[in-house]
């Protein structure tokens, strides 16, 4: 159950976002010499939780706040995984000021990956032909 303090904090955050959105809109319209950049096509989606296996729970690790406060917890064994590159940006989430998800700029990276795999003949011929068409 959220405390009144947390709810107030969340409400204040939403108000701030709304305010800045309005300012950004006005400035964009007033200052831009040409039409503002077209909103990119939304390629991400509101993550529907797959359900054939247990629903993922965001653990306390993933909810950690910011890079400076991240301190590795002492572990009972020597980890073999490389030190984590801490990136706090969530993968996708619904913007509080818009029903649309926040756009991500991964289409180009995916395109390059697809090109590489096609070059390496990783797909069967029929699939590759379909992907290239």
């Amino acid at each position, binding site marked *: 159950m959220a405390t009144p303090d947390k709810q107030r904090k969340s409400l204040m955050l939403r108000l701030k976002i709304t305010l800045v959105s309005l300012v950004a809109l006005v400035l964009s319209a007033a200052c831009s010499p040409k039409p503002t950049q077209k909103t990119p096509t939304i390629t991400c989606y509101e993550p529907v939780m797959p359900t054939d296996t247990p629903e993922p729970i965001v653990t306390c690790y993933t909810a950690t706040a910011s890079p400076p406060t991240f301190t590795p917890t002492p572990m009972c064994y020597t980890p073999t995984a490389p030190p984590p590159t801490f990136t706090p940006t969530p993968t996708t989430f619904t913007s509080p000021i818009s029903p649309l998800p926040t756009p991500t700029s991964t289409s180009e990276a995916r395109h390059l990956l697809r090109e590489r795999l096609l070059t390496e003949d990783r797909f*069967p011929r029929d699939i590759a032909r379909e992907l290239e068409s």
Partner: protein
Amino acid sequence: MPRRNWLQTTLRRWQRELAAERVRLSGGRPAHAGPYYILELTTRCNQDCRYCYNVWKLRPELVTGEMDTGGWCDLIAKLQDEAGCRRVTFSGGEPLLRDDFRAILAFCHRRRLAGILITNGQRLDAGTLAFCLDHGVDMFELTLLGADAVTHDRLTCTPGSWERALAAMTRLYKAQAPWCGVFVATSENIGQVRQTVEMLIALGATAIMFNRFNPGGRGAHHLNLMPSVEQVRDALAVVDELAATYSLFASASIPIMPCLVDTSPYRHIGFGFCAAARDNAYYTVGPDGRVRPCNHSATVLGDLGTQSLAEMLAGPVLAEFTAAAPEVCRPCPGLAACRAGCRAAAEVCFGSLAEPEPWLRANLDRLPPVPWSLCEKIVTL
């Protein structure tokens, strides 16, 4: 324009803060959590996967028949009216083997129910895909087990299944449909996790699910397919890296117990524990209308044809299912959240909910002398 960049940066930073705040306010769970309802439309399947968890492959007596179209429609209406169900997941077996799949889906669509389709893709042709997209299916789940046909087909025991799965994924990509690529990690294919997940991403998967092999059903006869702790740890590092690089929603839905693998370095993967009786539970309705705590479990909570779901969920069977734990886990402070891994796998493979589940049992000698320092981190869930 610098000013505009500053505004955008500030706005995005606040959005991130709010997203984190939403996670905290919801107790660390996604705000739109379930419960979910999995409908196992049929026991029939056109693959014969060695890792399959369908309980009837081990205990056929658990399923007493298969409901007809009307039976499923009545049951779906009951779920919606009594339990407020807003989304159903179609599974099996292979749900597309039912001749009346479209009729059942259309019924759900008329009642404004969204759908998730779990399929091996063998019968997901262009017409079926278009029908699904027109009738409320907003997520498809397909499995790719390897980067080559030999690896994939050896696990499915179905020649040609790799190419047919890829063809279905290509159709999803071309249709720009949202779909989740599933990689079931076994000792045979886990070395190909990078190449396989790369293929899923290249084919437009919007989410990735990394599921360690969880024995049950036919899989209970193939415990040798269980990957080692080191293999899982290395594979998680790969999935985490790819999820970060391509901004993917990645999850490890089969429980990975923190006493075996410290999951904290993998910050781009959502880790799940047993959801039975929790807000995000995914109650499973078998082909005969009987309800189980999840699709891995052999525990029958009741018959939805004659009982209400609320009655089943309040009954002693579910309470017993969620309270069970092996002795070795009882002192653990993280037990309430972790639930000692998959209770259903322990039940199906060893006949008792109180047994260590197969992956834990295989690694009991690896538990650190003081394992609880890792488990304490999940106590608050």
